[in-house]
């Protein structure tokens, strides 16, 4: 069920994240509190290795924290008492309600750009005429309508980035998470959101 306007989409309370390395444990998030509301545009800035990508992974349910609470759309995905929600549950939340733009775009090399956009719809079970129309509109919005039948390796880095953004938006997610290197994400996302 979509969240109402101005409602909290994501909430982190006292979130810590540590990684076990060869001979020691390295903590990259030291008790983060964060609240994201519907309609907000939030930017995280930090030096390399400060934990930005880790935070994105926690917000998307890809990873679980070492401690603290992660709530998405009112549902606790990780809590001190409950532990992590099941892998399948977190996957379901991610596939239906979250759009992800990765550091390295991560388009599927063996699918065309159009097929890459249709993939989230197929995973959600929304691959119908309306879904195809929406994918076409998004491709047009990011200026890749002519490249729809091309494979990702035939596109430039910028074009791949725009295709990845369109893919993140195609199933109309309530939360879009874009990792760094999406240098033009702001303008592209804005343009795509305005036109769709």
């Amino acid at each position: 069920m979509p969240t109402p306007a101005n409602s909290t989409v994501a909430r982190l309370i006292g979130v810590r994240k540590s990684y076990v390395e060869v001979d020691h444990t390295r903590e990259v998030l030291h008790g983060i509190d964060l609240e994201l509301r519907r309609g907000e545009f939030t930017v995280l800035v930090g030096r390399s290795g400060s934990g930005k990508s880790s935070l994105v992974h926690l917000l998307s349910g890809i990873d679980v924290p070492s401690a603290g609470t992660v709530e998405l759309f009112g549902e606790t995905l990780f809590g001190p008492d409950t532990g992590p929600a099941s892998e399948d549950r977190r996957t379901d939340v991610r596939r239906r309600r979250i759009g992800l733009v990765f550091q390295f775009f991560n388009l599927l090399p063996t699918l065309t750009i159009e097929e890459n956009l249709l993939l989230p719809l197929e995973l959600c079970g929304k691959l119908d005429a309306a879904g195809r129309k929406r994918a076409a509109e998004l491709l047009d919005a990011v200026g890749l309508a002519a490249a729809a039948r091309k494979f990702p390796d035939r596109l430039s880095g910028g074009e791949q980035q725009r295709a990845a953004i369109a893919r993140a938006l195609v199933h109309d997610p309530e939360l879009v998470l874009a990792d760094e290197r999406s240098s033009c994400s702001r303008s592209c996302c804005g343009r795509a959101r305005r036109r769709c």
Partner: protein
Amino acid sequence: MFSLLTRASLRYLARHPAQLVLAILGVAVGVAVVVGIDTASVSARRSFQLATSALSGSATHVVRGTPNIPESAYVALALEPGSPPAAPVVQRALGLVRPAKRTLELLGVDPLAEGPFRGYTGSSGGTDAAALLRGDGAWLSSDTAREIGAKVGDELVFVVGSREKSLVLAGLLEPQSSLARAALADVALVDISTAQSFLGQRGELTRIDLLLPGDAGARDAALARLKTLLPPTCTVEPASRRSETLAGMTRAFDINLRALGFLALLVGVFLVYNTMTFAVVQRRPLWGTLRSIGATRGELFRRVCVEALAIGALGTTLGLGLGLLLAQALVRLVTRTINDLYYVVSVRELAIEPSTLVEATLLGLGATLVGALFPAFDAMRTPPKAVLDRAALEARLRSRLGRLALAGLAAGALSFGLLKVSSNNLPLGFAALFLMLFAAALLVPLATSLACRAIAPVAGLLGGNLGRIATRGITSHLARSSVAIAALAIALSATAGMGILVDSFRTTVVNWLNTTLVADVYVSSPSTFSNRDSAVLSEELVTRLTNDPRVGGVTSFRDGEIELADGSRVLASAASLHPRSRDAYRLLQGDPKLVWPAFETTEGIVASEALARHRGLKKGSRLEVRTAVGVRTFEVLGVFRDYSSDQGWALISKATWARNLNDERVSSRRETTSRARFPACAPPFLRAKSCSCARATM
């Protein structure tokens, strides 16, 4: 048509053709070997069963004797009011030497008694009336006559015992059904009296076919009445038992062949595993992307399995076709081996059994799935964050090296344990060997890691950074490199193992032959088939050779069979051993000083090692044997080493044979021998004395 995920998978495979072809070939070769071997041995078995059942006709039971049936037994049956329909048969496999070399089954039947049994014997083409009148006429199927290039009136020359004897092609049979065609393919049909005189079996029958009632009560009553009519050397058994017994002899041979097929498939599994692991590892970012955008673990698992199944389906299809081609070549080798070691069979066409194809298909697909299972689980179980990390798999494998090696050691120990207890159990022995291969494969990652660590400094010294990169590359991609090394090691070990096995066996047999062949000259009848001589030497030749003052000593044998109380038969040789020949038998059980005197004077046998193993015999065991005077108990006096027959055989003294088996038969053949040994004699004079059909070997 296909889902986007399936499309992505198929395109991935298409973009890596070399990898795809290698995996497909791995499965195809494995499946081809399984299908080829299975089809070849099934074809040989089927041909034998078809020929046997067709030659038995509609007979339900068969009377057999030890070794033959006196004709009087048939007369008694025929004269008994209310006795079941019976047909006398004289049958023996003979080598045809002219007009073409071939093994034919000489089948002598009584046309008047044949009616209810073998309908096809009545259908004939042209007839040579003169041959019928002379009593030396034989009938062949028109197909067989065409194949050997004979026409009606032509002479058919066979080797019978130590002589060449001829019949005349008196007519051609035109089989009306495929069964009859198969039955007559390797048969020379003659009148029963012609067969008896031709084979020197006057007054003797090979068997009597019977048609007993289907009703169990009536059948049992008929069997009980038959027992009172037949002499004690005769037994009545279901018609199918003989073919089952003979086919059972090839069981070990079949298992060995099938194990070779499975070994080929195992190498294929490793290739598939390697390919799929590579494909999974190579696409870790892709799995990570899919998991991140919402693909479930089950969907990823199915993806990898679908890809493996696509490879398996292509490989299996190719393998089925290749297997049938391979079977064409293998069937000749398998048939030759069966003819040499077990029984006479001629395979005219491949018996392609649906069950073989289904089994091979399931094996091909199953093996591919097994090979893909670990990579699929790996792709499925790894959380999305770790999937995005290329090194996660390698890190996990490195952390499991110790555990894998321990599992390998445990599997190795279990394998050794199984080998210890499987001395007489072939399937268990193969299971132990496959377990040993698996154990070795589990030890490969640790061994590879340690070996690379050990040679890294040397590689660095010799090749600088490139040398270091090479050795570290192996350890940093251990998940793939160790599997490739394991597959190569298994293939190499199988090749080396087979080579060592064959070499060791050859050396052992050579040593055994050096011990066994103590005579200077060996004389036997030429035999076109089988490792045992069913033919006999002429009495005249043996008498002349035995009485020659230049011959230092003679050991003679008569090869035959003895029937045990349970109805099963054992190969036997009745021997009159010269004292020097006794040294040829290296006794594994029993003291020579006690065994050989007892052999000549008591009711005992000396068993070959193979016979002792098959029957669970040891020195002092007892065998219940059917003899002319009823069931007698024979003591196993000793066990000797022997490699001449995998089924094993019993050595009996001629005196014991004469005392306990058909007296008339033994007395008539007292001096006839199938083999004779001459410890000291001059070859030229022997050659002069041998007739054209005796073979003298030094």
